[in-house]
């Protein structure tokens, strides 16, 4: 079984993948393992598809309500219901049914997620549905996003955007992107939105609670709500259709991390891990090649260690010796995309210069105005005297 079956349970055919890979790693039954892998891939391609596979190939008939709910027509009707809800929730003049619209949109969103989960259960067994936290974070993220576009007060919209960012960070955690989750909170919620809040508070004078009719007209009345909602939900319908039908075109997920060979660039981590596992007793050390790299046999995951007397032996790599998220991200950023970092730096520099230049011109204009006023006042004073 894979190590993290608790978090992301796998398909039966992915279990097959993993089992085949483990056989491959342990060195025994190599050809049989390869055969198993091939069968697993073929099975996964056949069963992961919703559309192209005929009903005769499906192993068991789904129960009628499940079949009805996963019908594309029903799905599009649910999306249309969501469109109606969002359209009602948008701010407008007079009495606006915002709460009702929000509830309708929430029901529609919940139905779509239910349909997706039913499909997952039908195609991958009960284990293919995502973690329970996914539903919590997704609901918070989408609800707060809806509130961002429907709240008439800009400050509250920005605060709801922070809630969206926090929920997205939770989704990133579920996707095992820990570094990005916290970077998102620090940069988005901590820096970008605070800048927005500063500008909102500088630019607008919010009326007190209970005097909402004093809010600016451009905040309380939305522009073309029906046309905009239709356009947006056509986009969502197309994307959902792609999700339902296009899963089959995806290449199957790899059974194991392909970038683990980068561990060879972290000899100290390997050495520390070996020491913790008790493989380096009595003054032994990790054997190094003439270039200073550790000597690793990836096919059976063994590493060469050097005893105190200079004798070299092979030891199995300790369990749990893997690239961490930050290490992998660092390698990906600095080894695979070094040019992009330079471009990102140039973009930031240009934005900084641009912001300074845009603000500076206004200050000059003000000073010019002040000088003219001062001259006028001086002239007026001289005339009186």
């Amino acid at each position, binding site marked *: 079984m894979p190590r*993290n079956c*608790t978090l992301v349970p796998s398909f039966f055919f992915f279990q097959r993948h993993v089992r085949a890979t483990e056989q491959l790693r342990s060195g025994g039954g190599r050809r049989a393992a390869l055969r198993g892998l091939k069968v697993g891939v073929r099975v996964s391609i056949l069963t992961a598809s919703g559309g192209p596979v005929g009903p005769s190939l499906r192993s068991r008939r789904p129960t009628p309500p499940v079949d009805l709910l996963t019908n594309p027509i029903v799905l599009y009707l649910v999306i249309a219901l969501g469109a109606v809800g969002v359209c009602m929730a948008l701010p407008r003049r007079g009495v606006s049914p915002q709460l009702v619209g929000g509830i309708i949109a929430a029901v529609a969103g919940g139905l779509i997620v239910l349909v997706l989960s039913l499909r997952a259960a039908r195609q991958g067994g009960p284990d293919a549905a995502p*973690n329970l936290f996914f539903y919590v974070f997704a609901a918070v993220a989408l609800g707060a996003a809806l509130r*961002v576009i429907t709240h008439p007060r800009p400050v509250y919209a920005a605060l709801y955007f922070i809630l969206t960012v926090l929920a997205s960070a939770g989704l990133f955690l579920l996707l095992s992107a820990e570094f990005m989750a916290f*970077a998102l909170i620090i940069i*988005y919620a901590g820096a970008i939105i605070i800048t927005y809040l500063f500008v909102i508070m500088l630019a607008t004078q919010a009326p007190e609670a209970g005097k909402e009719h004093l809010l*600016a007209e451009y*905040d309380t009345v939305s522009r073309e709500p029906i046309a905009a909602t239709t356009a947006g*939900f056509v*986009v969502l319908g197309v994307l959902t259709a792609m999700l339902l039908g296009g899963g089959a075109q995806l290449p199957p997920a790899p059974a194991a991390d392909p970038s683990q060979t980068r561990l060879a660039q972290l000899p100290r981590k390997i050495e520390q891990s070996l020491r913790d596992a008790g493989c380096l007793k009595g003054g032994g050390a990790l054997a190094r090649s003439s270039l200073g790299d550790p000597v690793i046999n990836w096919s059976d995951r063994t590493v060469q260690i050097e005893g105190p007397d200079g004798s070299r032996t092979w030891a199995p790599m300790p369990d749990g010796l893997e690239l961490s998220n930050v290490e992998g991200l660092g390698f990906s950023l600095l080894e695979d995309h070094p040019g992009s970092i330079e471009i990102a730096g140039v973009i930031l520099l240009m934005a900084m210069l641009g912001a300074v230049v845009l603000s500076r011109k206004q200050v000059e204009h003000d000073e010019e105005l002040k000088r003219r006023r001062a001259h006028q006042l001086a002239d007026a004073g001289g005339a009186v005297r």
Partner: protein
Amino acid sequence: MSDALTLAQQGWPAAFPAVTLAHYLFVSAAMFTVGLIGFLTRRNLIIMFLCTELMFQAAGIALVAFGRYHLDFSGQTFVIFILTVAAAEAAMALALVVLLFRKRETLSADEWTEMKG
């Protein structure tokens, strides 16, 4: 404690079925749609920029989900660049908004329709 409630994990994650990926992609698509609708309907300049940030966020979720599916770090790397561009965009856009506000004393986008040409 049920297994379904495990948030933290150790080591490299296991493979990820395509139907689970679809959940994350749906959340991403719905969030993008909400941002798009907000950008089209709201008339406050700052809220319109906030909605573009919402769309950036949705793209980031999709990238990380695909990266997780392929067990590849490039998705997360691209999110770093999205963050960079979002920060640059926020700085420029807010400087522009402050400039426009000083000229007309309003945040309404309809005040600047003559820029349509």
